[in-house]
């Protein structure tokens, strides 16, 4: 790349900038397919949702016609069903997420023993999480049937009565949490097991030499070391759980009454059964913004925790 002469140097600089340009193109062309598809099917629909939420929709042509400002938002502000569905979603999240995290990490800790069948057990734990959620809702609905279900038959044997799992509002919510927990706890167990197996052994050996009992080891070594993974798993579970739809649709369909009508199901029914597209777009925007804010907060929290441990 020795430059001998001024005019030669200028020419080279030009071709180099030409090469830079083609280099830039070749770098970004790796992103191109994904960027085009995501712009078309992810970014555009989100913008379109925002647009519809400020418009009124012509049901003959399915297009947004008139700009109505915050009219749709005012409408949903007074929509009791919408606020109920937000509350129901909150209750579901507040129960399901902590239960799954505690059960998942607890079980993983309990069964973290080296033995022949360990990898087989670990593989089998994959099965509940690949059962389609709509199938999960269906089978559990069958097993929890008060008349023919096998769960109530078993409870009857133990003399625990005959709970009406899907008919009682509080129990229906518990049912949703149980089904979701059944499907997702194995996921937490698998991640927790992988994390437990990756813990540094020498720290525990040092603690053994110091005569620490298992309780001290659990609280002052295992849990602090696991905190980043607990936080990350929580975020992943949160991202999945806010999308709750299939299990409810297949098991309770939001009932009895509106007791398990989570927000995704409510918006779905408002849009595709009542054809209130503009209002449901406004609701979707509210949910979208709230989810984004909370996800952002959880991510920041995760980073903080990672740094402080």
């Amino acid at each position: 790349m020795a430059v001998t002469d001024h005019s030669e140097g200028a020419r080279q600089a030009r071709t180099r900038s030409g090469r830079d340009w083609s280099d830039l193109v070749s770098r970004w062309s790796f992103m191109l397919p994904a960027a085009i598809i995501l712009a078309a099917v992810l970014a555009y629909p989100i913008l379109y949702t925002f647009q519809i939420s400020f418009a009124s929709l012509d049901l003959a042509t399915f297009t947004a016609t008139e700009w109505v400002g915050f009219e749709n938002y005012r409408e949903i502000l007074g929509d009791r069903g919408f606020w109920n569905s937000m509350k129901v979603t909150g209750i579901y999240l507040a129960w399901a997420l902590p239960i799954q995290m505690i059960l998942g990490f607890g079980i993983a800790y309990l069964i973290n023993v080296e033995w022949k069948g360990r990898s087989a057990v670990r593989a089998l734990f994959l099965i509940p999480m690949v059962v389609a959620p709509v199938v999960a809702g269906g089978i559990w609905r069958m097993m929890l049937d008060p008349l023919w279900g096998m769960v109530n038959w078993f409870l009857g044997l133990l003399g625990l009565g005959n709970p009406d799992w899907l008919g009682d509002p509080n129990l229906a919510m518990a049912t949703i949490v149980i089904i979701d927990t059944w499907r997702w706890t194995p996921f937490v167990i698998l991640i927790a097991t992988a994390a437990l197996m990756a813990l540094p052994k020498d720290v525990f050996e040092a603690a053994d030499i110091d005569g620490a009992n298992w309780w001290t080891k659990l609280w002052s070594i295992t849990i602090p070391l696991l905190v980043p993974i607990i936080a990350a798993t929580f975020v992943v579970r949160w991202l999945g759980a806010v999308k709750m739809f299939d299990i409810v649709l297949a098991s309770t369909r939001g009932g009895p009454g509106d007791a398990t009508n989570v927000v995704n199901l409510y918006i779905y029914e408002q849009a595709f059964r009542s054809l209130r597209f503009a209002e449901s777009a406004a609701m979707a925007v509210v949910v979208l913004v709230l989810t984004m804010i909370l996800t952002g907060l959880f991510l920041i929290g995760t980073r903080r925790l990672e740094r402080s441990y």
Partner: protein
Amino acid sequence: MAVVDTGYTSRRHLWRRVRIVAGVVLCALFLFPVFWMVLSSFKMPKDIFTTPPVLFFEPTLETYRSYMSRADITRRMLNTVIVAFGSGALSIVAGTMAGYALARVRLRGAGTIGVLILMSRGVPPIALAVPMFLVARKLGLTDKHITLILAYCTFLIPYVMWLMRAFFQSLPRELEEAAMLDGCGRFGAFFKIIVPISIPGILSTLIFSVILAWEELLFALVLTNRNASTIPVAIAGIAGDTVNGANWGALTAVGTLTVVPVVIFALAVQKWLITGLSEGATKG
């Protein structure tokens, strides 16, 4: 001292055995609903609707026969296969390239793109389903495979990008440097060197994507009605059918048909799936 020692170790042994047994019992407990579904799918209605529930009965394929012969189940099965593999293939190509770009090709703004991908995983599908339905309706694209394939890309591509980014970051950098020195361009290095050695990672990510697409319900409900409708929609219909009462035979048979291929798939690549899962969680 020796006595105390053996007492301690035998207690430890007992505790170890308790933990192993607990693991097996818990695993069986979590598998029970799947077992019960498969078992019930071979029952006659008289064996399904009984108290106490029966474990031993004369197995029959009647439910399968009557449901498989109904054209819509076979067609839906085919649709589910087309859509799951179509969207899986499209996402794996686009997502692997993008994941590679994020991991290895120095791009200005790669960090921002990373955050955007993470945030996109929080977008509620219902916020996409409403506008997609309206646009598809306007363009005459409802009830077509391609519509559903593209809709599934909304969650599959970010997922693949994220997993493959982590995968490529774990590869030694010398690989593509050597390839570039050999005169391969950036594309040459990627397709001739990086992709072939990444096949296990790509394959397991592909399988996971196919599973996610296979089970999807909301977009399928909204964007299809007859020709491109998938199995989960059928199951939602059977499970939610309150007019004809509980059709548990159909539910368990169609459920088994949906779950069994996925379980076989998942077990075949379980080692990769478990690593992929923990990677996806801890680095995602």
